[in-house]
């Protein structure tokens, strides 16, 4: 099982994400944003959290136009898995691989704390190891996590069961409390919370580990 993690010049959760992937049994390769191809045989691409380009202009905007973005899109088109927490989610929206956009938090402040999420959808490799409706504790740390999309898109996301996680209490103004969404083929997941920060007991919780394990199990089974 092979994971590639994209590294943008300002990424700062790239190593954390690598640790989480390795913990679930993945071989991890870090891929520099100036590359135009991914290494062979990659099963999943991690688009890490952090401040890929300092959050300048719009969060994720510049990363979404970086040289590696084309290879990322191709990987998704081929049916590869992509996982983007936090800034990764913002980047995936900016590339158009996921619908909608992330605006400044409703309270305008950066928020870092652990929040309760409800697992809304277990029909995806990322969420298969959770129980439908399970409530999990996962840290958030963002300034722009206020998910927005036009009403039609929101209806589709709900109707197609693509809202993967929802906040139990919405901290940032996100539409319908949406914390994470899946692509149409359910192989691309973007979410504002950081499951990679909840993978070992020393971090204060392990509710995030099942996401990486679920993905690993899906790959083994395939």
């Amino acid at each position, binding site marked *: 099982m092979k994971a590639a993690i994209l590294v943008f*010049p*300002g990424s*700062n*959760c790239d*190593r*954390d994400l690598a*640790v*989480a992937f390795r913990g679930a049994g993945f071989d991890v390769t870090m891929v520099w944003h*100036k590359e135009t191809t991914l290494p062979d045989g990659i099963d999943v691409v991690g688009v890490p959290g*952090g*401040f890929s*380009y*300092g*959050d*300048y202009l719009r969060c994720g905007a510049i990363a979404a136009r970086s040289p590696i973005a084309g290879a990322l899109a191709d990987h998704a088109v081929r049916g590869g898995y992509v996982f983007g927490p936090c800034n990764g989610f913002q980047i995936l929206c900016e590339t158009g691989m996921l619908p909608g956009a992330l605006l400044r938090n409703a309270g305008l*402040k*950066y*928020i*870092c*704390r652990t929040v309760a999420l409800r697992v809304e959808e277990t029909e995806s490799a990322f969420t298969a190891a959770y129980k439908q409706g399970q409530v999990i504790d996962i*840290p958030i*740390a963002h*300034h722009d996590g206020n998910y927005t999309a036009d009403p039609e898109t929101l209806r589709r996301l709900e109707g197609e069961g693509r809202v993967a996680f929802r906040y139990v209490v919405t901290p940032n103004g996100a539409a319908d409390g949406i914390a994470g969404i899946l692509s149409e083929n359910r192989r691309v997941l973007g979410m504002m919370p*950081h499951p*990679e*920060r909840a993978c070992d007991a*020393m*971090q*204060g919780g392990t509710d995030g580990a099942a996401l990486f394990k679920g993905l690993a199990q899906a790959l083994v089974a395939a």
Partner: protein
Amino acid sequence: MTEPAITPDLIAAHGLKPEEYERILGIIGREPSFTELGIFSAMWNEHCSYKSSKKWLRTLPTEGPQVICGPGENAGVVAIGPDADGHELAVVFKMESHNHPSYIEPYQGASTGMGGILRDVFTMGARPVAAMNALSFGRPDHPKTRQLVHGVVEGIGGYANAFGVPTLGGEVRFHASYDGNCLVNAFAAGIARADSIFYSAASGVGRPVVYLGAKTGRDGVGGATMASAEFDDTIEDKRPTVQVGDPFTEKRLMEATLELMATGAVVSIQDMGAAGLTCSAVEMGDKGKLGIRLDLDAVPVRETAMTAYEMMLSESQERMLMVLDPAKEAEARAVFEKWDLDFAVVGETIAEDRFVVVHGGEVRADLPLSTLASSAPEYDRPWEETPPPAILAPIPAADPIDALRSLIGSPNYCARDWVVQQYDTQVMGDSVALPGLDGGVIRIHGTNRGLAFTADVTPRYVAANPVEGGKQAVAEAYRNLVAKGARPLATTDNLNFGNPEKPAIMGQFVGALDGIGQACRALDMPIVSGNVSLYNETDGSGIDPTPTIGAVGLIEDLDRRIAWDVSQGLIALLLGE
């Protein structure tokens, strides 16, 4: 370009006293050029020269078997045992103030303060792993407080969060003595291999002096001088061009610097802080007993028509100066180009003991380097012992529950979540204890050992009795570490006081240092780095003496840390006298 003539007014505007100017004339034997005057003023101001405090700082304990490098470099270095592969590691840490800039522009002032302290840590070869910030504001209902609190907290978070270092502790206090002078003290700690710490002493003649990082603008020209002056009504006029923090560039500068260090190309390195190019070049030369020649035409600039004076005094952020192994220049350049940062050879080390600055084909400064570095005046300022505090009026009887309510509802004792939640406390994935109780704890990556951090001082104790207040600050820091299950290792201090030219203020300083020194000796917590911020006064009224103590402890086995998993049925014990 012709430089202005040297007049008494110009000398005074540089914060130099007439007798200090006489001293300059004695050293160089002629009238200085405008650029040279700027260089002297930068080197001799309180901020760079510690001219009022040096005598007393020397009395602090700075040694111990755990200390790898004490004060004098960008940050202190302390041994913390091996990593998972058996390499000995060190923690590199320091605390520094950015009080005056934060009062003028809270967001950018706090942000660049955070940036500066992070740079101090990675300049030594350590990857920053933890940050703290100790903040003192005026009364909550003072008209300026609200804006300062918002700006400062957002500025600290804006920088530390984007850079990617977890904020693990700090302090927030409100008191009338800070109405006109808020305090912003930023702490950072990093981890490095003990055998690859980088220092500032240059070595080898004819080696390239390399400029790294962001371009130079007119930011803060005059800023270092300002840190030595009291505020008054003319503050608007003294305002230098404000420095703007760029955490995105700093993050790249850190990655590039660490990558470069791993190639073996770096002979010595120094970050450009206050009076950037001047202080960093002089320090590298002086420590290595070499001269330096700078060619300012090669300095990357972002504004047109910058003069030598402006370049030498610019405080533009996110820059470093380095002496390079000439054989590795191409390799070094490639690393910086990878990270899209400026890399320019701007000079060389020379055998003669001179600091030569050339711009546009003209020599703008030619000064004796070691004398310039060591000649800063040192003052034994008069001081008087702080009189014993007035006896407090008896405390009126109060219902204990009411008293508790008003305590926890008061600005100084209420929960700090509203601040802490604006900081990323978990980035890097190794945060074990978040701010909330005592200090924060991180895991030393890949091991089961941890580092605990705390920042403490109680200014009213120091005001009442500087010696005892100084001791108390150290003791509180010690207790906070122990309460996490950590063995206290070492200390950094950030000494914030009023105008040292007043004997009463100087007395507070002398007393507090005495107390801090005694306590650090008794508790075996040597001081390995620190920073002094004087002249925290507005219209003649100074702050309460605020010597912030930052301390670091080691937890040998994280499974045995004290974790505060309080549950019903446990027994509460009160320890101590």
